[in-house]
C-alpha cells in the first residue's frame, strides 16, 4: 500500500517524471546524491530492506567501477592524487566519475520505484482511450511472456521424456530448434482462437462507431488530486527559480567549483520529499 494509491495515477507519474527530468539535467554531485538517496529511501519503504540491500550492493560496485574507469582514463583535472608512471589520477576525474555513476544507478533506481508506484493497470488506464491497440498489446505481452516460458518448459520435458537418447551437440541443437518450432506452432494456433474470442467480444467496435475505447479503470479527478498536482507544480516552480543559481557556479574541471549551501538544494530536497506531503492528509489511513 503506497500513499499514491489514494491519488489519481497522474500524480505518481508526474512526480517521478519530474524528478527523473531534473536529475538528468543537473550533473551535479549534491543534486545527484540527493536524488539517489531519495530513490533508495523510497525503495526501502516500498520493497523492503532486503530488496534495498541487494540493489545497493550491485549499484555500489557499478559506481566504483565507473568512477575508477573515469579516473584512470580521463586525465583532466589539476589536483593529482596519485601518479602511476605517467597515468595521473586526479580528484576532479574521480568526483566526476562518482557523480556520473551515481546519476546512472539513481536513474535505474527511480525507474524501479516508478514501476512499484505505478502499476501497469494505471498506465493502461491512461493510455487505453488514446492508444487502445498498443495498450492491449502490452497487457497481452505481460500475460504471454510467462505463459510461453512455462510452455517451453513443458515442451522440453515432453521431448526429453519421449526421446531420452539425445546426446551430443548437434542433437541438442536440433532438439532445441524443434522445441522452438513446436512452441511457435502452438502459440500461433492459440492466437487464432484468441483473435476469435476478441472479435466475439467486439474488439474494434468503437472504431466502426467513431467512438473511443473506454477503460473501467479510469478514475475521476478529485479536488484532492488537483490539490496534490498544484503542490507539485509549486515545488517545480520553486526548483526552477533556485536550482539554476545553485548549479551555475559549479565546475568539475579543471578545479571543482565551490559547493556552499544554496537555496536550490533545499528546493530540490522539498521536491523529492513530495510523497511526505501527500501522506499528511492521509495519515489516518496509512497507520
Amino acid at each position, binding site marked *: 500500500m503506497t500513499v499514491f494509491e489514494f491519488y489519481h495515477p497522474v500524480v505518481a507519474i508526474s512526480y517521478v517524471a519530474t524528478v527523473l527530468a531534473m536529475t538528468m539535467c543537473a550533473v551535479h554531485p549534491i543534486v545527484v546524491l540527493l536524488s539517489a538517496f531519495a530513490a533508495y529511501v523510497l525503495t526501502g519503504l516500498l520493497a523492503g530492506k532486503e530488496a534495498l540491500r541487494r540493489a545497493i550492493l550491485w549499484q555500489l560496485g557499478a559506481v566504483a567501477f565507473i568512477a575508477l574507469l573515469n579516473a584512470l582514463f580521463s586525465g583532466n583535472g589539476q589536483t593529482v592524487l596519485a601518479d602511476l608512471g605517467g597515468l595521473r589520477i586526479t580528484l576532479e576525474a574521480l568526483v566526476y566519475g562518482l557523480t556520473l555513476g551515481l546519476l546512472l544507478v539513481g536513474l535505474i533506481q527511480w525507474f524501479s520505484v516508478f514501476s512499484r508506484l505505478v502499476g*501497469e*493497470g494505471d498506465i*493502461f488506464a491512461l493510455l*487505453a482511450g488514446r492508444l487502445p491497440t498498443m495498450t*492491449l498489446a502490452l*497487457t*497481452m505481452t*505481460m*500475460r504471454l511472456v*510467462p*505463459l510461453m516460458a*512455462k*510452455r517451453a518448459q*513443458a*515442451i522440453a*520435458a*515432453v521431448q*526429453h*521424456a*519421449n*526421446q*531420452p*537418447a*539425445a546426446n551430443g551437440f548437434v*542433437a541438442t541443437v*536440433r*532438439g532445441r530448434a*524443434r522445441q522452438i*518450432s*513446436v512452441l511457435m*506452432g*502452438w502459440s500461433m*494456433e*492459440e492466437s487464432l*482462437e*484468441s483473435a*476469435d*474470442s*476478441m*472479435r*466475439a*467480444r*467486439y*474488439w*474494434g*467496435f*468503437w472504431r466502426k*462507431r467513431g*467512438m*473511443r*475505447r*473506454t*477503460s*473501467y*479503470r*479510469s478514475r475521476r479527478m478529485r479536488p484532492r488530486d488537483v490539490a496534490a498536482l498544484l503542490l507539485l507544480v509549486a515545488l517545480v516552480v520553486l526548483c526552477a527559480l533556485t536550482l539554476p543559481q545553485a548549479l551555475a557556479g559549479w565546475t568539475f574541471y579543471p578545479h571543482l567549483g565551490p559547493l556552499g549551501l544554496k537555496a536550490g538544494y533545499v528546493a530540490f530536497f522539498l521536491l523529492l520529499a513530495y510523497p511526505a506531503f501527500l501522506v499528511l492528509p492521509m495519515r489516518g489511513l496509512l497507520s
Partner: protein
Amino acid sequence: MSEGTPKAIELRDVSFRYVGVEGPVLRDITWSVDEGEFVVVTGNSGSGKSTLLRCLKPEIAPAGELSGEIAIGGALLSEETSQLVGFVAQNPMSQTVCDEVSDELAFGMENRGADPHEIRRRMAEVSLYFGLEPLLHKKTNELSGGELQLVALSSVLICTPHILLLDEPTSELDPVAAHNFCHALFRLNRELGMTIVIATHQSELYRSYATSWAHLDEGELRVPSCGPQLDVGKLSEFSFDEERLDMERLAKPPHGGAQNTPRSRSNDHGGLERSPRGIGSQRACNVVARDLWFRYGKGAPWVLRGLDAQFDEGSITALMGGNGCGKTTFLQMVAGILKPQHGKVKNALQTQQAYLPQSPQALFTADRVDDELCEWMGDGLHGQKASSRVRRNTLRGQRDTFPQREEINEILRRFGLENLRARHPYDLSGGQMQLLALAKVLLRRPQLLLLDEPTHSLDSPSRERLAELLHEERKHGCTIVMATHDGEFARAVSDHVALLFDGSFACMQETEEYFASTFLTVEKSR
C-alpha cells in the same frame, strides 16, 4: 417470420460450405430455438456443431458460402442483432486475452466504448452472481481451468447477451469444474431466463439441465419430436447411451492371460522384442517409487509427501484424485522430468517409455498428420536419428514408401483419422488432436506408457477404441500408468486404481475392489 412471440433463434434452409472444400458442412437446416430454452446440440467430431454455432455470431463466422436465412429475436442476423448473442469457446486459456481478471471481464464493454461507471457496475453484478470477487485482481495465468472458464463466461455475460452460444465449454475441464460450470449455465437459464445453446459431446453432463436437444449428423440437423419435457426414452438413441462405455466389449482379459501372444516386431524394431512371461510367474516391478517428497520451490506447499508406489509389468494403473493433487507431478517424476527433493524413483524402462502430456500440442512437430506419426518411428525409440531421416524421406515425397506405413495406416484407421492424414495437426478438432497424440505415443511401442488424461476431450467411440489399444499394449507386456478423471474409463480399462490424496496414495487397489468400496463416485451407481 412467425406469429406470436419471436423465436430466439430461427434458421431457414441454412447451408454452409467452406471455401475450397467440396460438399456443404451444413445442409438445409431449418430449426428454431424458443426464448429461454436450454438446447444441447450433439454430434460426432467434425459433424458441423462448431460451424453451426459460429454461423450465428457474424463476428466469428467462418469464411465460406452461407445460404438461407438466420434470425435472432425475430430480426435478421446483423451487427445489431449479433449483440444479443454471446459466444464462449472450448479452451479457457486461448480465449483469455488480458493479464488480470478484472481487465478480462471489462474487455467487451470497453470495446463497445461503454461508460466506465456502467462497466464497473456490471462487473460488480456479475462478480456477485458467480462469487468472483476473490479472483478479481488475480493474474489470469494463475487461475485453474474451471475458474478461467467461468471468467470467460462472465466476460461474455457482462455484454448482456440474451442468447449464449457455447462450443464444447466443458471438455477441457475436470469433472468437478465441469459440473460447476454446468450449474452456472443452469442458473443463468432458469433464474434469468437466458437462452442457452451448447454444442458438446458430453451430453450426459447436461442431461438434467437440457430442455431440448438437437443432433447434427453429416451436416443435417435432427430434432427429436418431444415436448418441452425431456423425454429420456426417445433421446437415448443418440444422446445418452453413446456416453457410456460398452463394458462387455471392453471386458478385460484376465490378468496376464493373453501374454502368450507377443507381437513379433523383431524385424522392424531392433531390440524391442518383449519377453512374455508365463502365467503365474512372479511379475517384474520395473517401476518403483520410494518415499517421494516434492514441492515447487521453497516455501511452496508439499505436493507429494512420502509417496510409495510400484507398478507391475504388463498392468494398467489408473491414478485418480482431485485437481492439483499431484497426479501430473507424479507422472513427470516417473518419466524423469522432475526430480524428487527426497526419495527415489527407480525406472528401469526409462529408455523405453512414452509420455503423453496433458496438452497434445506439446507433442506436435510436423505439418501433416502422417508425418507427425513418422517422427518417432523409423528405428523406433532412437527418435533423434530417425526423425531426421524421416524428414528427408518425406521431403522427397516418399511418404508412401516409409517402411512402417502399414502400422501408421492401421492406427489412423482405428482412430478414424485416415481421411485426415494430409491435414495439419492444428486443423484437427480437439478430440482428433488428442487421438493423434495418443497414436504418436502408442506407435513408439513403449514398454512403459505414461498417460496424462488420455481420454481428455474424446467422445465415447474414441474412448472405446483407445481402451482396446491399451489392452493390446498391455498384452504385449507394456506397463501403463495413466492419470485420469474419467472414472468410467478407469473402471473399464485398468487393473489397479490408485487414489492420490494429500501427497500420497490413499489406496491402491484392484479396480473391482476399488469401485466396490467407493461410496461417493458416480461410477458406483451404474
